């Protein structure tokens, strides 16, 4: 078994118009910026993108939005230090937004990967984000029914991978990635280093390889935050 692919372009080539794509990361931490930029080069349209945020600056998800690839964002916090890309399209009515409380977003993705179609959470009860959703009372408290979230693809940034797809993440770069890897039909990973099986101590594996389909080694990944501070711009090659 060897889940490696030779390059980023091959890794994202299966993502077609209309696909739903989960993208790991919280702000810049754990954001698979090289995979996102490869996807911009590939250029599928009408994508639904699931991420905690909605892009920052002129790179990554913001550059996808600028390139007109994104039909809908599902996120908790579509604001950032430079949210222009999403804000402009949203105010012009050119992009849909499904706003989800952050813990609900995480749990919906987890449920999607775990085969649980719906669950109840106290978050958003009595607020406008609960409108239209079933409510139930358990032990005297009210809870809102939320549904699982699944995707056609997940793009994930790992620190270490082995060729079977076992992964470790770097520090708080883990965030949504283990959940997204479970919830997507096809999970595509960029890893800083790809090892032979046995290269990662089984006790240290964060995501078991069963959740991973493709791996590309990106030996010196860029950090979204550093790029934004440098004023970087990404446009299709």
């Amino acid at each position: 078994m060897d889940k490696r692919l030779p390059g980023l372009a091959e890794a994202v080539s299966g993502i077609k118009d209309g696909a739903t794509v989960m993208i790991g990361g919280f702000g810049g931490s754990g954001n698979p910026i090289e995979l996102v930029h490869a996807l911009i080069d590939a250029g599928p349209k009408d994508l639904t993108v699931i991420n905690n945020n909605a892009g920052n600056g002129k790179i990554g998800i913001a550059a996808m939005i600028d390139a007109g690839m994104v039909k809908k964002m599902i996120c908790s916090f579509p604001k950032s230090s430079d949210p222009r890309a999403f804000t402009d399209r949203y105010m012009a009515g050119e992009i849909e937004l499904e706003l989800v409380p952050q813990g609900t977003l995480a749990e919906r993705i987890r449920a999607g990967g775990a085969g649980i179609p719906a669950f109840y959470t106290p978050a958003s009860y009595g607020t406008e984000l609960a409108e239209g959703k079933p409510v139930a009372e358990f032990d005297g408290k009210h809870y809102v029914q939320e549904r699982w979230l699944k995707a056609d693809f997940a793009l994930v940034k790992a620190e270490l991978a082995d060729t079977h797809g076992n992964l470790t993440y770097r520090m708080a770069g883990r965030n949504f990635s283990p959940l997204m890897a479970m919830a997507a039909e096809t999970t595509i990973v960029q890893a800083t280093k790809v090892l032979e099986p046995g290269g990662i101590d089984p006790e240290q594996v964060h995501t078991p390889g069963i959740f991973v389909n493709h791996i590309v080694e990106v030996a010196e990944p860029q950090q979204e935050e550093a790029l934004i501070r440098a004023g970087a711009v990404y446009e299709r090659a």
Partner: protein
Amino acid sequence: MSELKLSNAQIAWRAAQDIEDGAYVNLGIGFPEMVAQYTVEGRTPVFHTENGILNFGPAPAPGDEDWDLINAGKKAVTLKPGASFFHQADSFGIVRGGHLDVAILGALQVAQNGDLANWRVGNKGVPAVGGAMDLVHGAKRVAVLTDHVAKNGAPKLVEECSFPLTGVGCVTRVYTSLAVVDIEDGRFVLREKLAGMSMEELQSLTGAPLHVEGSVGELSVPEL
């Protein structure tokens, strides 16, 4: 003569006095983050951030930032000995599952029944909620730090919130620039007030009745 009210730093200091040694604490983005600076000497609370860290510390020196090591406000942080990382679903399991001792948030309005409005003023612009609607549920204590009145002078402690709600009946204590107020049985109960402020004046700046049970303490904080 200085205006008779606490600065944000002083409100944060007062809130920090109620954080016990060993407490697990989530501080909301912005103003509530200041509470960490005033941790009482000899106490070691553990701070939680929604993006998956327990026991993070202050910002690193400029130039030492690691952008995989950030808090929920996307600011660079450091780690203390005994820190841990976990994924976002576990992180919100910590929140909703009742494992935090204290969550401290900012507020636009707090109602006497504990309703909180802190995420959106109206329906203009891009809405963004983050973890606020989750954070108000589950912690043993949900505290709010706020000026007692808004910039336009309107009370922020009200009978009923007019701004969009973040959560229903969730706030347990409010630390304001003038007072410390608990929410009990659908009412504001005054616990402390500034010595120089009369009951009548404080009530006139509050949008719902302030109840008194027993004695009202003096809200006393150092110059900061």
